[in-house]
């Protein structure tokens, strides 16, 4: 048709003009670091699930809580345990006493008192509150009985002698109790404020009160969270940053990394570490990569429940003799810095005087296909079968897990002729299957709750609820009891050294790797602290330089 008078070109021109007008708008987005304001921006995978320190469980909540609240003790910039709200303390056997600082304040100007601790700790074990991490309070006297509803709250072994003196009774001597008091569920909570919130404590900015280095000033759910320096914090002088803003929350790590490349973030993936592809990208863009152990150890756990073929030691040893964790880490996973697994106890854990792993070297099982096949034959005889039935390997639905499951499937098929079925499940379905024992092998891992090898060691005690494979060995249990019954470091570490050897010699697990977090950060941001327990990244002592 004829179109001489009609000009689509004019339309296009108007459209182009509109676009130009759009881009001419001032950019509102801030940059990752701001020297003048001492402000930084970070991104998170999502929303903190619950900032109420009594009930919090997830990594994101732990991250924010460590910045806005403080317990009796805390970690300083060098990751050492120092006084927080407590100025000094005494600990002897089952008895501990803390003297609180007079200048520790809540953000409304009222002092932090011993009563705030008593109230908080009682709430943690209160059956009606139903705190998931209540078991971390169990070292305190009567905590378990109270949690089971068998004793009144007042029976808890914690007492405020006066406003500034706190006395704690423990169930048994617990060497790491002091470290526990820096964990969030041990944080103080002020009773009058808590009750005034009507169950919405820390649900929104107006329901919050802080005693830590920062305070939350704005929280748009699912979108952004902003922390600003807390002027009433007793040690505010040692805090340089004024603002820690989280303007981006997305589970898409690619998106977060792109934001970092675009200069919108001060640090990326402080909580989880970069993936292999992001590392390649970072390398190509000449970024400095920082690497830190994040504390988590990953391993293949066998199902030891009665009736499972994986309960057979020879079958497990056959698999152990063909599995090379170096191949898994270096070739399949391919993330720089991951340490091939050799033991349940990670390399950074301290023993008596030196690193635990230097004092107690791990026995190294031999990689030997012939021996593996002999073990397999023995296993078949012992089990009375001609063929080992297909084994299910349970894992979650993240790509790194699926990758490993497929590797194990091919490995055991190729070397031992075993039929392995991959069972990749979403989060809750995997938990359900692992708790009900619907698996033969499970890809799993454990992050430390406190800085003592015991946080790993007691995992395979027959009574531990986190013993997914229900491994039950009187020998192993006796090692755990020995280590738990004393505060003598030498005896404890010796017992744990024996646990380590036992786990490998009986092939209870196949250690696969120790994770590190590879992180990229703006070169102007210095002093970021990374640690293995609690929040893996802490910005309290960070600052922006020119």
């Amino acid at each position, binding site marked *: 048709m004829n179109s001489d008078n009609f000009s689509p070109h004019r339309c296009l021109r108007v459209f182009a003009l509109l676009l130009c007008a759009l881009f001419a708008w001032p950019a509102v*987005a801030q940059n990752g670091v701001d020297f003048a304001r001492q402000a930084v921006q970070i991104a998170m995978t999502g929303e903190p699930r619950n900032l109420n320190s009594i*009930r919090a469980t997830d990594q994101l909540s732990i991250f924010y809580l460590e910045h806005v609240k403080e317990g009796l003790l805390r970690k300083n910039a060098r990751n050492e345990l120092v006084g927080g709200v407590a100025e000094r303390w005494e600990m002897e056997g089952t008895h501990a006493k803390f003297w609180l600082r007079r200048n520790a304040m809540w953000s409304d100007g009222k002092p932090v008192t011993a009563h705030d601790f008593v109230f908080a700790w009682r709430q943690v074990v209160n059956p009606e*509150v139903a705190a998931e991490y209540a078991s971390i309070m169990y070292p305190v006297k009567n905590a378990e009985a109270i949690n089971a509803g068998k004793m009144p709250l007042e029976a808890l072994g914690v007492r405020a002698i006066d406003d500034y003196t706190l006395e704690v009774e423990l169930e048994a001597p617990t060497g790491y109790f002091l470290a526990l008091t820096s964990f969030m569920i041990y944080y103080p909570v002020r009773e009058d404020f808590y009750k005034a919130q009507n169950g919405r404590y820390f649900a929104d900015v107006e329901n919050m009160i802080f005693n830590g280095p920062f305070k939350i000033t704005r929280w748009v759910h699912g979108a952004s969270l902003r922390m600003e320096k807390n002027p009433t914090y007793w040690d505010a002088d040692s805090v340089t940053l004024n603002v820690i803003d989280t303007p981006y929350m997305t*589970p898409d790590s690619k998106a*977060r990394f792109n934001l970092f490349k*675009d200069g919108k973030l001060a640090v990326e993936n402080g909580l989880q570490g970069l993936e292999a592809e992001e590392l390649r990208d970072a390398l190509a863009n000449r970024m400095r990569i920082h690497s830190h152990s994040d504390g988590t150890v990953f391993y293949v756990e066998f199902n030891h429940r009665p009736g499972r073929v994986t309960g057979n030691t020879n079958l497990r040893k056959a698999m152990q003799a063909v599995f090379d964790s170096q191949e898994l880490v270096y070739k399949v996973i391919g993330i720089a810095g991951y340490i091939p697994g050799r033991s349940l106890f990670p390399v950074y854990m301290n023993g008596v005087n030196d690193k635990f792993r230097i004092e107690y070297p791990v026995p190294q099982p031999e990689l030997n296909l012939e021996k593996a096949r002999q073990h397999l034959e023995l296993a078949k005889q012992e089990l009375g079968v001609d063929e080992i039935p297909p084994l299910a390997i349970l894992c979650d639905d993240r790509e790194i897990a699926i990758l490993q499951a497929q590797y194990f499937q091919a490995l055991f098929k190729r070397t031992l002729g075993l039929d392995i079925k991959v069972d990749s499940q979403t*989060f809750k379905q995997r938990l359900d299957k692992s708790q009900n024992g619907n698996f033969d092998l499970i890809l799993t891992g454990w992050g430390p709750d406190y800085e003592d090898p015991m946080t790993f060691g007691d995992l395979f005690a027959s009574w531990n*609820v986190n013993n997914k494979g229900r491994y039950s060995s009187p020998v192993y249990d006796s090692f755990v009891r020995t280590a738990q019954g004393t505060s003598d470091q030498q005896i404890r570490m010796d017992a744990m050294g024996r646990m380590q050897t036992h786990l490998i010699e009986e092939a209870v697990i196949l250690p696969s790797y120790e994770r590190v977090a590879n992180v990229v950060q703006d070169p102007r941001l210095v002093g970021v602290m990374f640690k293995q327990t609690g929040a893996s990244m802490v910005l309290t002592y960070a600052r922006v330089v020119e």
Partner: protein
Amino acid sequence: MLSYILKRLGIGVFTIWFIATATFTAMHMVPGDPLSNERGTNEIIRANLERQYGLDKPVFQQYLLYMGNMLKGDFGIAFSEENRSVNDIIREHFPVSATLGLLSLLFATAGGVLWGALAALYRNRLPDAVLMFLVILGISVPSFVFAALSQLLILNLNQWAGRSILPVAGWGDFRSMLVPALVLGMSTMAFMTRLMRSSMLEVANTDYIRTARAKGLSPTRIFFRHQLRNAILPVITVLGPAIAIITTGGFVVESVFAIPGLGRYFVQAVAQLDYTVIMGTTVFFGAFLVLVVIAVDILYGFIDPRIRLGAV
């Protein structure tokens, strides 16, 4: 008219009940439970949690309780974010999804009409071929590929320009909505372009256009007054289904561009088996769609007098 609307609304209520029941059934068929967590809990803590969430009651009682609360407009407390009610979550995040959806619908419709008209205008010439090729791309490339590529494109654009021309991700001002909305609306736009093009060509062959041309009206006038106006009608009729697709189909875009919309919440809730959030979002989306469909049907009655309401 009023009785028609009332009847439709009555059926709508039943439909929402059906959606709620279907969701409840499907959800409780899922193995696992919302209270389990990576760190195992002992029986004491476990029992305390179950009591707190009312999961210790029989399933049918839970169903009745839930339906009762839903009638009161209360979707309960989220399992994964214990301090927030599902109503809050919907109230805070649905507007984001809706804004994104409406914007992309706007893009899709405006783009579809514009490109479709242009393609028809330049029928079988170069612009037509180029546009049709783009349309083909729009309907045949998966949205997650589009989203990832466009984010990469913005990033390179910013690096090339040396400043932030468009935000790579995030939500807030109009500039951050621009690309996600375009990506989300892409396939709808492609679909509408095709529809518009064929509708334009169809109208061009009608008697009234021939008459108008014979009368000696200017081509511009014919194009705008007669051809465009009549050709748009079929495009409008697909708006209803398009709203449905766009407002619930935003998971990918929301996750790639860090947008706090409701779609992302739903996917997370499913992985977390967060009963109340799954129920809340599904029922809400279902109700929303039912209402949109009713509203669109009624609107058609006004736009196109040929359609008679009441003949369901």
